[in-house]
């Protein structure tokens, strides 16, 4: 064996040893408020983060139902099981603060993911979609597609979701700026049964009274896409949200004009990375350039992008680009790891 090969082998062995020496004992739990398709991307994000950053675990754990008490029980159980860092979509922006306090007092950092805790809270920061901004941009895109017509309906998520009111306000603001009217807001329908019932009933009775539909929650976007396909009338313009196959296919087929993509994968991946860093000694920078929203002054936008028929086949690349950009400067921008 040549000397150069021996040196290369030795270097590789050293790197492996160093790698295992630096392998983290951080066990991250990614906990949504309840079962919902939006969060499923967190599972793969956690797995990838555990592999890429050498974490002991980054597991996606779902409360069996959308109940604050069920989420609290799960979080307490996960702490008992040895999880020592938490990425949480708060079951309630105020009611979850107490549990977050208990987790952080046990030494486990908490990051609010996809939805924020209301300040003051022990969460290091909130990493999520700037939901208001996303809804605002989506409404602007819808109004652009609608041309001169100005009557829109807004289908959105649970009222207990801290993001819902932000979305309602943003849609209203964008519509007002363009001289449009939000003729109907239907909320609390981010589940198949109420969404099917209310959207179909509304369109059956009032389809002629609206020119555009904006949806700002996953399930209503899917149901409204299906409804427009069934009606077969492409007069009503629609901008959806997220990347469900039904919505993407409706965009391809021309029933839906576009969708506002969020970045759940990036949230889970970067959140797991940050949680590990915080647990192993990094601090949040005092002068980090956080944004503010109605709930917190420590908000980081995980990115959003509008995708129409022209980009629908390459949306994954678009989202990967957003994640890559955010991750590239994340530590430098938000964390102080100089110990």
């Amino acid at each position: 064996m040549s000397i150069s090969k021996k040196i290369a082998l030795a270097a590789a062995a050293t790197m492996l040893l160093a790698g295992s020496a630096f392998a983290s004992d951080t066990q991250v739990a990614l906990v949504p408020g309840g079962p919902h398709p939006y969060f499923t991307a967190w599972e793969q994000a956690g797995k990838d983060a555990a592999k890429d950053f050498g974490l002991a675990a980054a597991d996606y754990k779902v409360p069996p139902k959308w109940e604050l008490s069920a989420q609290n029980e799960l979080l307490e159980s996960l702490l008992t099981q040895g999880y020592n860092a938490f990425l949480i979509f708060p079951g309630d922006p105020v009611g979850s603060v107490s549990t977050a306090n208990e987790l952080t007092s046990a030494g486990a950092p908490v990051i609010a993911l996809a939805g924020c805790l209301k300040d003051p809270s022990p969460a290091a920061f909130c990493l999520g979609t700037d939901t208001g901004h996303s809804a605002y941009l989506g409404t602007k895109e819808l109004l652009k597609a609608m041309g001169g017509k100005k009557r829109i309906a807004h289908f959105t998520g649970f009222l207990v979701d801290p993001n819902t009111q932000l979305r309602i306000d943003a849609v209203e603001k964008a519509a007002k700026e363009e001289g449009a009217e939000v003729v109907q807001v239907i909320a609390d329908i981010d589940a198949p049964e109420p969404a099917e019932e209310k959207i179909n009933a509304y369109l059956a009775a009032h389809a002629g009274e609206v020119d555009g539909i904006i949806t700002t929650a996953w399930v209503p976007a899917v149901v409204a896409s299906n409804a427009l396909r069934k009606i077969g009338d492409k007069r009503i313009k629609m901008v959806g949200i997220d990347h469900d196959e039904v919505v993407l296919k409706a965009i391809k087929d021309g029933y839906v004009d576009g969708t506002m993509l969020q970045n759940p994968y990036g949230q889970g991946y970067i959140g797991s990375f940050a949680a590990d860093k915080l647990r192993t000694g990094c601090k949040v920078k005092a002068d980090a350039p956080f944004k503010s929203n109605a709930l917190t002054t420590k908000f980081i936008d995980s990115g959003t992008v509008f995708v129409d028929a022209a980009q629908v086949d390459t949306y994954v690349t678009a989202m990967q680009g957003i994640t890559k950009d955010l991750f590239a400067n994340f530590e430098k921008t938000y964390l102080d790891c100089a110990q």
Partner: protein
Amino acid sequence: MSIDSHSATPTPASPSGGRVSGNPRFYLTNEFGLICLIVVFGLIFALLAKNFFSPFNLFALGRVAAVNVMIGFAMMVVIVTGGLNLAVGAIGVCGAMFCGFLIQVLGLPWPLAILLGLALGAGLGFINGFAVVRSGLHSFIITLATMSIFFGAMVFLTRAESFRGLPPIFSAFGTARLFGFVSPLLIVAALVGVLLSIMYRYTVVGREMLAAGAKPEAAALSGVPVGRTIILCHMLSGSLAALTALLVMARNGAAIPSMAGQLGQDWLLPAFLGPVLGGTLLSGGRASPLGTFLGAILVTMLTNGLLLLRVGEFWVQACLGVLLLFAVLVDKARRSYLAHLKVA
């Protein structure tokens, strides 16, 4: 032990009254069966689940159990009359939100706010009871309607905004650990259970409640004011529901409209599980505060243990159902066997 309209009044045939030790009938009761099941499952989880007996887990388990126990009590006191209170969650949230409003907005001292919150619970219970007695409709119908009315009014008046400007004593109480692992919430639940047992066993009003539930016509002929007693049961249920929500408020450090879910429906399952497992008869006339307490502890322990065993979160509900069915069947078999051996 369960208390019915016969055992509540000490007679020569049952001189022991509330005594448990030395009474062989106790070994045939739901309560003894539940104690056995709690011990058995406790040992199983201790063997299989890491940290089941860790101080933090015992504390967390006790705190969740306390709320479930209290919800069970709030329902039990109405089941005793043969009725139901589906508005138990809605009333509870109204009481807690009212208390939060009085403290945060009006600046009232917290002890007074707590009393007024409990009073509101009793007042809403009075509306339920009065409507049941005067209309003659089953409490299922009445409380199904008032559940929506109470919750809707609360959301309208508060705009679904939380009250978090509570004195630190609330959070301190909700997160305190006595001896490192006992939640004060559990002590409150146990205390309420003891008071309910004393009421049913030793007070006139308690016996009247059992009598009115067992046979209303006979109770009326005996001079029991059945209508008034039913109203009283609903008022007690309302104040217990409000007390439960105040405990949840202490646990969360805030009064939040979603603490019992939409319309307070999240409380319905635990409201029935504890009393029914504990031996309270749905037809009325029999109450078991101890059984309700133990039933709620068992259900909470099973959920906690299954979560620690890392049974998939979605399987927890299914496994919980299977284990409960198994537990009830084993308990029934145990009682049949003991009865066969004429232990009693």
